[in-house]
């Protein structure tokens, strides 16, 4: 069985983003999706700190400390992009104006609850940033994560054990083993990694899956 690696997962997300979509890529793994966006599609990236039309990292000589992304890394602006303040930026998110956001996750529940901001460990310093706004605001919320934790527990669960980011907000999971839609209380397996059967996948999780390939 060939798990999808992180670049392969990112590529699968990227290919599902249509021309003209307004997209926010969360900090961390989701940022990688930008590397695989089809060059023949115009896709407009949003950064919570007040940018639409965000472009790739600049050459070292062109780094501008006033032009960074949500992860505080230097970025560029594409022609047609613009700047705005945090009020407008989060109105875009909370007001349902973004088409897609892509987030990482610690756990996702079968009802689409998302936990991705806080381990809940007693000594952890909590930091939430824009995660909760993205989770509840975008028209479609995609999650990128490994199907299992390093210790072999499934991250797709009946009920999240970690503190929640948002309730019933996840629409689709892109994992190293499968792509799964969360739709009307069902978990619809759309695609499986090569050599993995539906029964293999079902055995790895305590929640009931339904096989319904996308094509």
């Amino acid at each position, binding site marked *: 069985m060939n798990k999808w690696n992180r670049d392969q997962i990112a590529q699968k997300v990227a290919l599902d983003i249509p*021309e003209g979509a307004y997209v926010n890529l969360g900090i961390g793994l989701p940022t990688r999706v930008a590397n695989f966006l089809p060059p023949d599609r115009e896709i407009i990236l949003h950064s919570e700190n007040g940018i639409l*039309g965000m472009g790739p990292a600049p050459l070292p000589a062109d780094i501008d400390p006033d032009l960074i992304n949500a992860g505080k890394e230097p970025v560029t602006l594409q022609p047609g992009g613009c700047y705005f303040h945090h009020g407008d930026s989060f109105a875009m998110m909370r007001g349902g104006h973004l088409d897609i956001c892509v987030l990482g996750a610690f756990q996702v529940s079968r009802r689409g609850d998302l936990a991705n901001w806080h381990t809940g460990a007693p000594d952890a310093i909590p930091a939430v940033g824009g995660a909760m706004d993205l989770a509840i605001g975008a028209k479609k919320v995609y999650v990128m994560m490994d199907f299992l934790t390093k210790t072999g527990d499934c991250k797709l669960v009946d009920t999240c054990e970690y503190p929640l980011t948002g309730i019933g907000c996840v629409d689709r999971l892109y994992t190293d083993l499968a792509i799964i839609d969360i739709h009307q209380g069902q978990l619809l397996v759309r695609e499986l990694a090569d050599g993995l059967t539906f029964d293999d996948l079902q055995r790895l999780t305590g929640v009931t899956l339904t096989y319904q390939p996308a094509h």
Partner: protein
Amino acid sequence: MINKTVATLEESVAGIFDGATVMIGGFGTAGQPAELIDALIHQGARDLTIVNNNAGNGDIGLAALLKAGRVRKIICSFPRQSDSHVFDSLYRAGQIELELVPQGNLAVRIQAAGAGLGAIFTPTGFGTLLAEGKETRHIDGKDYVLEYPIKADFALIKAHKGDRWGNLTYRKAARNFGPIMAMAADCTIAQVNQIVSLGELDPESVVTPGIFVQRLVRIQHQPAASAA
């Protein structure tokens, strides 16, 4: 390639359905998208709920839409003006419903819709006729009225320059309700005086980012005062 520009006024207002809620920009005639309103009259949608600061001036623009009998209800702050005879007659005849909203509550309710808020406590109107029957609350020494967002299916607005991504700038006080209505409608349609190449608008000076605009159409006929 993203291209939100449409070639004709007819295309720009396609799909506006009977019973739709339509925001129309403008304060009096400044910023009123006269050509889009004419196109909407031509298009024929009826039973509309209109959101505008006023209720039409003279016999053109919004007044003409009212006169054509297409408007079931208007949500506005200042219907009665020296030249609002079309509205006045319909209102007196009981042929149009009026929801009168203080201008700042109109603005902030539109903003609340655009920003995805569920409701807001506003001080404006507390203790007045316009807050009768509404929930109120005393917060930190002051009284507030609970008001709900005003959303729309469509917004028709007038801007100055636009590009194919839908980024907009405005002209002087014609800006007024345009930017906030653009944020509150499912489909925002902007008439512009000029369409410029992508990247030509200064990214620091874009007033309405293209994410809030679904269609834009250039108005060929430019009154002298709307140039530059």
